[in-house]
């Protein structure tokens, strides 16, 4: 670094400096919240309206997929929780499945965060937790045609033949809406094997990284709604009127987005000015 002028130093700031700056930038808003308002965008509003009001009837069965693990709780769990609450308040019944082996932890967190809504519900009647499935897209395709072969018992070992809710769920034709929240491709499995093949209503509660990939599917009508990352979760919390984890995290997100833009501008200022100097 010696012999470098200010412009070259701006281009070559040690990444460890940035890691510390980013860490502090992310932490400070948790201690000193700012609370900027969150504007709800159309794709999130469509998702919320698609699972509330006239779009869902009491007794309808919704399939909710925990396509995320514990590591993605901050991005997916808030939106998923709001969706589950909204469906329960409409009187829908919910079948929970998961593609990650830590799905039980995610389900326990959901039950904790939506404790008031779960309190009035009976396991096996109003909801059922089928648990982890292995088999990827083949399993999702088979779930659409014969769900009982994919899940002969629920996560707790109860045979599906003994579960009242499962008497009404054998395949795609019994499901009113599918909500998939994932960090990877499980949503696209549902897109191909449920929505594309059978026209099932499908929405995605995805991570921000997948937002640009999912957006064309929302515009094309394959997803009736789309929640993107923590911001989508915060928007859903605004819509249901119950601020939660995602709303709390928005300040950190604001700070980190701003920081990345500042860092890129600094690097380019250094780059352009050193080129001019040369």
């Amino acid at each position, binding site marked *: 670094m010696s012999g470098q002028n200010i412009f070259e130093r701006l281009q070559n700031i040690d990444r460890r400096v940035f890691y510390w700056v980013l860490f502090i930038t992310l932490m400070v808003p948790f201690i000193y919240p700012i609370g900027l308002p969150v504007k709800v965008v159309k794709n999130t509003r469509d998702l919320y309206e698609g699972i509330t009001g006239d779009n869902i009837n009491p007794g309808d069965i919704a399939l909710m997929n925990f396509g995320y693990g514990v590591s993605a709780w901050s991005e997916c769990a808030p939106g998923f929780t709001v969706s589950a609450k909204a469906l329960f308040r409409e009187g829908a019944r919910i079948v929970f499945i998961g593609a990650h082996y830590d799905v039980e932890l995610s389900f326990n967190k959901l039950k904790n965060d939506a404790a008031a809504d779960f309190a009035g519900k009976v396991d096996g009647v109003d909801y059922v937790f089928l648990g982890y499935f292995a088999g990827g897209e083949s399993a999702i395709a088979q779930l659409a045609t014969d769900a009982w072969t994919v899940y002969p018992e629920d996560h707790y070992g109860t045979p599906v033949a003994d579960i009242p809710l499962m008497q009404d769920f054998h395949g795609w034709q019994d499901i009113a809406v599918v909500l998939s929240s994932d960090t990877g491709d499980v949503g696209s499995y549902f897109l191909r094997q449920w929505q594309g093949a059978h026209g099932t209503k499908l929405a995605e509660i995805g991570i921000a990284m997948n937002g640009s990939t999912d957006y064309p599917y929302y515009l094309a009508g394959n997803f009736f709604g789309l929640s993107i990352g923590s911001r989508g979760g915060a928007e859903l919390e605004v819509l249901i009127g119950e601020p939660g984890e995602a709303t709390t995290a928005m300040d950190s997100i604001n700070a980190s987005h701003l920081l990345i833009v500042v860092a890129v*501008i600094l690097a380019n200022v250094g780059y352009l000015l050193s080129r001019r100097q040369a």
Partner: protein
Amino acid sequence: MSQLLKREVVFALTGVVTVLMFVEYFFFPSDWIVASTVRNWAVIIYNISLGLGGVRLIMQHVWGTQRRKENWQFSALFLVAFVVMLFGGLAGYLGTGVATSNGVYNWLFNNVYTPLGSTTYAITGFYIFSAAYRAFRARNLDAALMLIAGCFVILSNAPVGEVIWSGIPAIGEWFRFTGQVPGMRVFGVVGALGTIAYGFRALLGKERGFYAGGAEE
């Protein structure tokens, strides 16, 4: 592995399964028992492959430990952790029919594995940050335009963008609709065509990767 197993058997199996899936999709409005059975087999085979991976891991780390290779201590630690988690899960399952009911298993999963997973996911943010800082340079006009568009899209994704200037969300949305979404659609279409073409070549026995060296030349 003989060429017969690598090529002809794979070729025949692939062809039969492909035809079954095609026939079911196009000619049966609901599921077809034959295709449904084959899908069940696919799920079972995938689950068996998880066991195969486990066996491979054990072999790898037993070799490492036996031969005292570099960092063999970590291989030994892995074997201990593997045995503890395996028998903890089995003990839970044999006891109550629920694999995650064992205390030791749960403690290790909730307090060791899960936080480690969350930490590695969190590292992504830092690496994206350093990659963006290093790579987003306005080296030419194209790069400069992309940089400007990227900044607007980043700021429009966070509420702070609107606070800085009310026009940022609108401009970010414009970049998204005119640049990002069409670009993603293009990649989606060409990627799908590429997948179909790859599948077709694989069906005809041409692709090396599919036949692991047994492809037709």
